[in-house]
Each structure stands twice: as C-alpha cells, then as structure tokens.
C-alpha cells in the first residue's frame, strides 16, 4: 500500500570560489531515501569521504530491506523505530569505512564528511545527521529547521557565549564537533517525525544556508510547485549571494495519493485486523 508519494529535485554546485565540489547527494524517491554529504579533507580526500557515504548508506539500507535480520551496527535505541535505527546503523557503517580508508592511505588522513539522511517509511520520516548539513521542513507556510548543527558555533550559541545572530559571520563557523570518518566511532543524532500531505523537505549543505536565509527558502518554495525548479533557484540564489562554498540541496515534496472511499472500504472488509 503506497499512500505516500514523493517527488523531488536536486542540485549541487561548486560555487564561485572553490575549485572542487566536495558535496555529494543521493536521492531515491522510490525508497523514500535522501542524503546530502559535505566532505572535507585535503587534496581530493573530501570528495572521497562524501562519495563513500552516499554509496554505503543506501547500500546498507537496501541490504536490510532485503534481509531485515541483518545485524545493526551500534546500539539500537528503543525510543526510535526500526527504520530510524537502521538509518543510524548505515551512517555508523559509513563512518567505519571512511575512517578505515583514511587510516590506510596517508593522503586521506583526517578526511571526513557531514551526513544528513532521511527516510520516509509509511507516514513516518526517520532523520539521521552528523555535522552541519541540515534538514528543513516547510509546512503550513512556515520553515522549520529539524536538525541541530554539530558545530562549535552552535555549541557556543547554546551555552550563551555567542549571539545566534553572529553565527553566520563567526570566523570559526566551519569547525565541526562531529563528522563521519574522523574518529573510529561516531555519535549519530536521530530524529523521527510524522509527515503531513504537502510537506516540503529540504536537505542542504552549509554552503546553501551561508547565503540563503529561511525567508528566501520559504519564498522560493511558494513560487513554484516543481521541486527541481525550487532546487535550481536556491542554488542560483546561493551563487548570487557570493557562492563562497559548495552548495547542495534536495527538495522533496510529500503528497498523498488519493484512494477512493470504495477502495478504503474494500481494503478494510477484505483484510480485517487480526
């Protein structure tokens, strides 16, 4: 039964200042899986780390769909659904593999990547994130940030050392407190939320939000109904604001497929609850 339907658009751009795009994304609307990764590290190591993460996470999720008995990596947290725990397991696997590769090759030493990954299972969205890539939801005319950055400036804001308004200008705004691949173990932050019809999910790297404010995101989401148009427009606005960093965005629109009253009644009559 597929009552929920997702359409998406995605765009990624190197920006106007950097030479390499170390952002990577993965979008699979059939599996309801969307991932944005922002790699870091010298030479080409950053794009290695982010490329690995966007390969490993969908692979682990697909394997466990085929075989739900596949063991989880790391602790299962009972307050979250099996789907959310599975997503965390996939991020931990990516951490492990990236860290291994970094340990094996000197030129990859210290490489890492942020991850923001969401998966829609039925009406429930699982959210896993590490680092400062973000997830927003646009619902009922308002933009809401669903992830809390794992960054030094975020910690300083939370402990009252830095006014929130200065976050975007702080010189150490790129310093992360968590990343995938840098340490042998990673603490993956998990979230879970029911979706509503019409929700627009927006995953992005920090390059986008460096130049594009919440208000602009909201306006762009109201100017078009096509998620690809929204994604392209947001990247264009990011570059217009300076394009100081790689910018990546996935826009996913959640809708509900119409099922007729007769079909609903029929479904209930032929499959009464056990």
């Amino acid at each position, binding site marked *: 039964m597929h009552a929920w339907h997702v359409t998406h658009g995605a765009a990624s751009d190197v920006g106007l200042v950097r030479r390499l795009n170390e952002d990577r994304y993965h979008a699979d609307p059939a599996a309801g899986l969307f991932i944005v990764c922002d790699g870091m590290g010298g030479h080409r190591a950053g794009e290695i780390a982010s490329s690995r993460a966007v390969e490993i996470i969908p692979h682990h999720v697909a394997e466990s769909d085929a075989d739900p008995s596949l063991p989880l990596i790391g602790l299962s947290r009972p*307050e979250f659904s099996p789907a959310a725990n599975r997503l965390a397991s996939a991020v931990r696997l990516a951490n492990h593999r990236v860290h291994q590769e970094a340990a094996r090759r000197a030129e990859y030493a210290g490489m890492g990547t942020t991850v923001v990954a969401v998966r829609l299972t039925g009406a429930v969205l699982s959210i896993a994130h590490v680092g400062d890539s973000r997830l927003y939801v646009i619902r009922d005319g308002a933009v809401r940030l669903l992830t809390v950055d794992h960054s030094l400036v975020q910690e300083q804001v939370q402990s009252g050392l830095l006014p929130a308004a200065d976050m975007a200008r702080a010189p150490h705004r790129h310093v*992360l*407190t968590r990343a995938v691949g840098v340490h042998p173990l990673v*603490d993956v932050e*998990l979230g879970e939320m*029911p979706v509503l019809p019409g929700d627009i999910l927006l995953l992005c790297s920090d390059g986008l939000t460096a130049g594009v404010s919440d208000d602009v995101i909201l306006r762009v989401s109201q100017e078009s109904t096509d998620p690809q148009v929204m994604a392209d427009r947001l990247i264009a606005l990011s570059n217009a604001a300076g394009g100081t960093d790689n910018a990546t965005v996935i826009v996913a629109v959640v809708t509900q497929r119409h099922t007729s009253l007769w079909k609903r009644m029929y479904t209930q009559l032929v499959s009464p609850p056990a």
Partner: protein
Amino acid sequence: MSQHRATPPLLLVRAPHGGTRECEITHIPFTIGRKPDNDLCLEDPAVSAHHARIVQVQEVLFLEDLSSTNGSFVNEHPIDRRQLQDADALRFGTHRVIFRDKPGSAMEPAITGEALVSDRTMVVPSAAARESPAPARKVGIVEILSGQTGQSHYPLTRQVSLIGAQDDAVITLTGWFAPKTAAMISRRGDAYVVSQTESGKRILINGRPVQREHALRHGDVVEVAGITMRFVLRDERSHAA
C-alpha cells in the same frame, strides 16, 4: 592450545592512543572483553564485557563474536564467526588487533597509524556531553477513557507513537473495523503533538475537531476512531517507578 604448534599464535594489540602490546594465545577458548576475567582485557567503553572469543576446530582458529554491542570486525567486515588467518586485522571497539598465526614469519604486517587530525581538518571534540542530549524531563501518558484498546494506559516513550490496528502501533486498537493507522502522537522537544494519518480519521481535542497536527497539553481529552483518551504529562522518574 594445540600441542603441534611450536610457537603459539600471537595477538598484537594497538590501543587507540598508540600503545602496542603483544598477547600470546596460550589456551583455547581465548576470551576478549572489557571485564578483567577475560584472557585479553581491553579497557574501552566501546568493548562489551565479554565481547568475543577465539575457538579452535581441528587445526583452525575461529573468532566468534559474543553478541557484542559494537560488533567484532575482521579486516573491517563485521563477523559472527570467522576463520582467522595470519595477519588478519581485527577490531573490537576502538582497539585494533593483528592476528599472527606464525609469529616471526616472513611477512610483517603493517599496523596502520590512526588517522591523525591534520590542520586542514575542521573537527574538534565536542565540549558538550558526547552522548545525545538527555531525554526530556517529562513523559506523556495516555489513559484510555473508553473504547477497545490493548491496555488501559500507554506511556509515550517513543519518538513517534502510532494509534491503530497496525502491527507496530503503540496504542493498539482491537475493534473489528479499527483503522490500521488512526493518528500519531510524536515528541517535539519537551512537547507532544498529535497528527492525522493517511486514514484521514477525524481527531477531536476537548470536543473540537483539529486539522493536520495539534500540540497536546496536560489534561487534553482526545477522541479518534471510537477511542476517548486523556493525555497527561508526568515526571519521567515517577513513571519509571
């Protein structure tokens, strides 16, 4: 240990911060874990009390994971049970271990250095607690006032609690025509929100219909799919008792 072996197999143990030591496998089974009663004791919070063991079948040694929390890895593959071969790289938690079947033989395995954080890497350890934020101080509970459900009250400890007849529902509806999904109650920080599902079931809060989603307050009476329930917030501790 087998008497046929001139020199016992060896484990080269490398702690995450650089210390290296050797440990001979002098008897079988050979146990590995955090507790001191293991043959190889690793002081590592990521290692389980009794994490893994090495067993012998005929002439062959196997590593068996003892259902450890973070798993055992051989050459970076998570394993349940795996035959050990000379120079295999094992990992338990943050400890790396090289298995030498024939110590002193030609090939000396390279123990790769831990990835050092270079100047270019922009990650620092968090000043905040390493674990995820502490759970909310209050926990929501629904008390069933009327209707057919599995229990009379339900603590809402999960991030998302489904009300319905579906298998994974937290609040299970047992009526013959109960919808698979009637509504969902989810945590949002310290607060709780009730939301409609694809079933489109009408939700009443204190007798008034709500659309899409609605924040719940202590004492709210919620009606959906023939069930009437009261939402209350309690201190987490008193609930746990």
